[in-house]
């Protein structure tokens, strides 16, 4: 460790920063997409319309039984087949992440919706609000307020999972670090640095979650 070379990290920062931006951007979009689709899946499962609930439950259980890396592969090869044209690694990975995360988010959101008192729905119904208005103004705001910490936690896991996109040759932060490590022959420096960056980002996120939980508990 005596010849730990900080210079190689310093020199490659712009390159690594590009990778980190991709990781963060992919995380951000996948969280948004996953929550939107996950909400729809959760509503479908709770709809009381049997075919709809079954399809949603089947989807969630299927996705949750498959490794993420396989889903990324699927969509890398499937999406161009379905659309008839290539969409690029980024979008195929994004679609894979959204569809994968939605299954996990939907379970969190379903629990969140069920945590809202049943009488709240009755109150909305009795004033003439329709199903979507009740969800939009009454149920989901309360459900999401209860769920924010666990949604953020899921986002942190997602951020770590974005390191899997190397399989479709996307240059995320992890891949960028690898490239520098191999081309410069500085494996120790780069992998230690990558670990520190992941740790700082994820730990900051966890602390944020803890603070939110404390605030909500009071």
């Amino acid at each position: 460790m005596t010849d730990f070379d900080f210079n190689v990290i310093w020199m490659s920062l712009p390159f690594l920063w590009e990778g980190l931006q991709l990781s963060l951007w992919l995380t951000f979009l996948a969280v948004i997409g996953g929550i939107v689709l996950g909400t729809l899946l959760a509503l479908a499962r709770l709809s009381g319309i049997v075919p709809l609930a079954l399809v949603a439950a089947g989807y969630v259980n299927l996705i949750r039984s498959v490794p993420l890396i396989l889903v990324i592969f699927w969509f890398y090869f499937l999406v161009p087949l379905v659309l008839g044209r290539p969409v690029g690694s980024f979008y195929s990975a994004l679609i894979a992440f959204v569809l994968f995360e939605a299954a996990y988010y939907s379970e969190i959101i379903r629990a969140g919706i069920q945590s809202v008192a049943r009488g709240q729905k009755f109150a909305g119904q009795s004033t003439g609000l329709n199903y979507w208005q009740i969800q939009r103004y009454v149920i989901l705001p309360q459900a999401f307020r209860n769920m924010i910490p666990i949604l953020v936690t899921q986002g942190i896991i997602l951020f770590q999972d974005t390191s899997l996109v190397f399989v479709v040759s996307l240059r995320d932060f992890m891949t960028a670090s690898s490239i520098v490590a191999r081309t410069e022959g500085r494996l120790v420096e780069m992998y230690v640095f990558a670990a520190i960056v992941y740790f700082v980002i994820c730990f900051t996120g966890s602390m944020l979650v803890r603070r939110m939980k404390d605030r909500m508990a009071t």
Partner: protein
Amino acid sequence: MIDIKNISKWYGSFKVLSDCSSHVDQKEVVVVCGPSGSGKSTLIKCVNGLEPIQQGNIIVDGADVTAKGTNLTELRARIGMVFQHFELYPHMTVRNNLCLAQEKVLKRSCDEAVSRAELFLDRVGLSEHIDKHPGQLSGGQQQRVAIARSLVMDPIVMLFDEPTSALDPEMINEVLDVMVELAEDGMTMMVVTHEMGFAKKVADRVIFMDEGSIVEDRSTEEFFGNPESDRAKDFLSKILNH
């Protein structure tokens, strides 16, 4: 105004309502009472379709609540309902609790909705609390806000589902006072309650339920003066002794 015709309801194989029939005329105040588990709360929730029924019909203001073609949301907007546990929206201010359905269902402008909210909050004596959240109010205050939330919709009838049974004793009267005033103003009301003092004071009729059936349905004087069934006598002796 409300016509309940031979309704029955099951939870699975358990029959909660058994061939119940009654009616509430315009400007009439009808109190529904009975021991817990008698089906009175279920009955009142059927009136605006919050609970489905398997047999019979309920007609409110000419519309069949139980028919498939009925626009239930449109009908419910004209039926006010007050719940045992208030069910105010905890994430919204009192103002927004009162304005939400006015704006989204009746399509009133924000200004119009707020001015009506202020009017009815004033009627229940809570104008100064308009910017608070429900959690900052006492139970009695929350229930009065809940009554105002129904009244801003200009309901043709008000349903009360045990409006005072979740309240601390010292707060019961402030809610009953609002309800008495409402009854005296000529509101059509159906009230599930154990408050026999309220029933004697304003009810035109009393419906007594036991084990899912309507056992008595008579004028208030007759019910209290000369109850017919043993079950009603037993119930009244238990509830009036203290």
